[in-house]
């Protein structure tokens, strides 16, 4: 086992992919000379050259479209969109082309495209740079949506995504890049079909993903000291959602809280809640609860931003109310 930051794990995944498959190349804003806005690709330009580490103009629609074209042409492009906030400029390429071409061509063409982007709030970058829109992407049939929360997933999901025949979107929570974790030095691709139980428990199921996993785990450790043993599920894959794992857990605990940094209305948490209603209604001993971001443009001021995002205390409060512990 080695200690490694999330950022280094992403870089290790990129390097391994570039080394093992000549069809793989990395493309995006500032990924080359600057080394990536989050330093994930630092050193790769020197190692692999400008043909395979390509700086692009500031035009998300263009370079995501170019990625789709390259994938159609037999390459295995990894497109880095700096953040989910800027990915909105490429929505047409993503929704109308990447997600539909297999269907529109009657299965003749596939788009083995991998798109990575940073997501999430919590770093005081204000309302235009703090979105959590994974849930929007998970709405779209035809693509896979992954949310790696651990270092092993940061590397392994990227490698696994490259073997997929259809577009895969990876959402890396920007708060996680400096986080350190342990993984096997030679860790390779990981499963990208299942959710993971990160902490077993029998009193309540906490369902979360991405950056919120760590807040949820901390809340569950503190709740354990007050007598509530929470099971924590890291969804990992938002589309297609692994409902079997969450239903099995809720059938055991009879209570569920979903933690999602995105805005509450129409959130991915709402989708999970609906799945629980459809699949585990008769197992529920209380209403499904959600801890979500406040419905405001995410504020710049630190205390306001903190107040707008799910917090350890907020998660604990919600769990306690659900378990009727006052």
């Amino acid at each position, binding site marked *: 086992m080695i200690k490694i930051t999330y950022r280094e794990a992403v870089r290790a995944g990129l390097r391994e992919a570039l080394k093992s498959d000549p069809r793989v190349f990395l493309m995006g804003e500032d990924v080359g000379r600057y080394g990536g806005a989050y330093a994930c690709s630092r050193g790769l330009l020197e190692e692999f050259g400008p043909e395979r580490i390509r700086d692009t103009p500031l035009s998300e629609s263009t370079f995501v479209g170019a990625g789709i074209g390259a994938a159609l042409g037999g390459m295995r492009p990894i497109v880095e969109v700096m953040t989910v906030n800027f990915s909105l400029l490429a929505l047409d390429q993503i929704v109308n082309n990447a997600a539909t071409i297999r269907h529109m061509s009657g299965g003749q063409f596939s788009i083995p495209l991998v798109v990575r982007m940073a997501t999430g709030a919590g770093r005081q970058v204000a309302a235009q740079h703090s979105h959590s829109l994974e849930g929007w992407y998970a709405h779209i049939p035809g693509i896979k949506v992954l949310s790696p929360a651990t270092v092993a997933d940061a590397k392994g999901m990227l490698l696994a995504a490259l073997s997929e025949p259809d577009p895969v979107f990876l959402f890396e929570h920007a708060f996680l890049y400096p986080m*350190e*974790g*342990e993984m096997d030095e030679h860790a390779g691709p990981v499963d990208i079909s299942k959710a993971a139980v990160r902490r077993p428990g029998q*009193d309540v199921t906490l369902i979360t993903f991405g950056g919120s996993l*760590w807040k949820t*785990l*901390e809340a569950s*450790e*503190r709740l*354990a*000291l*007050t*007598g*509530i*043993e929470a099971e924590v599920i890291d969804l990992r894959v938002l589309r297609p959602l692994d409902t079997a794992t969450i239903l099995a857990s809720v059938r055991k605990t*009879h209570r569920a809280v979903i933690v999602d940094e995105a805005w509450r209305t129409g959130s991915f948490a709402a989708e999970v809640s609906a799945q629980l209603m459809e699949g585990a*209604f*008769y*197992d*529920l*001993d*209380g209403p499904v609860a959600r801890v979500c971001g406040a419905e405001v443009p995410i504020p710049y001021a630190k205390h306001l931003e903190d107040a707008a995002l799910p917090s350890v205390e907020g998660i*604990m409060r919600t769990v306690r109310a659900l378990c*009727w512990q006052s």
Partner: protein
Amino acid sequence: MSAGTLVAWLKKPGDSVKRGDIIAEVETDKAAIEVEIFTSGVIEKLLVQPGEKVPVGTVLAIIREEGKAVEPGRLRISPSAKQLAAELGVDPASVRGTGPDGAISRADIEAVARRARDKGLETIGEEPVRPLAPSPAPLAPAAETAAKRQARMRQAIAAAMARSKREIPHYYLSTTIDMGRAMAWLSEKNRKRPIQSRLLYGVLLIKAVAVALREVPELNAVWKGNQAVQSQAIHVGVAISLRQGGLVAPALHDTDRQSLDQLMTNFLDLVKRARAGSLRSSELSDPTITVTSLGEQGVETVFGVIYPPQVALVGFGKMMDRPWVAEGKIVPRPIMTATLSADHRVSDGHRGGLFLAAVDRLLQDPSQL
């Protein structure tokens, strides 16, 4: 203004109201004012009649939040509890729910079924219930022994606490501690750690108590016969509440000599085993002092009852941001109350005060712990 007279209601029971609506007029010493409503819902009941003069803060009316209307005669029961009731042969209508607005949960159904089984009867209270299902499955014998174990524990706690208050002349001291430095140090230490190996501030408190006891050893003692016997080793007992109610306070052996990491690991292990019921008897009999923290329950100050034969107990309350004066300026700081309950036969307030001061001092320089 301390009281007002309700002049008129502008709404009647059954009316829908929304945030910002004016629902009543009240006359005060100075003027008539309108009462604005800050929540939306349906007026359920008016509690004050026009002409009545009531103190400020009196509840004037009850509003039911929208979507919370309870259909008369409809049982509030969780889907899972309903199914369990059918499996166990319990009539839900005979069960008193303990949840919000009397909602019935699985636990309520289980409790009724257990009582029925304990009695061996087919009735509960006045309400007849169907005989328990003939299949032996639903309530395992383990549940019954758990109930018995529970009752035994309550009796043991009752005996110890009654003896404590009967025999031990308690005195209580409390101090507020600025946890700013400790929390900053802790968050720096935890920053790079994976969640599983992070330190909780609780272990800082436990360690600070243990180290402070070296300076005031008379608090680290047991009462034997007619005198206090100081303990050579410092074994802090940590109060752990159990899921089914009740508590235990097993020892972290040689607390003052363990590193914070060791304490964290051992503490989590202790909590886990306490809840699983697999504590060793030495852990239950060895503590030389008890530490209890009710901060997570929102308690500000703990006035604990000493667990005999120990002669002291330290309680910690909730940490919260409070205005604090440092160098002539008011600054927000995470503040926590530490309380000492001590046996006046053994120690005096002066020594107790020194102990709390030592705990405070140690928490100002956590790197030394």
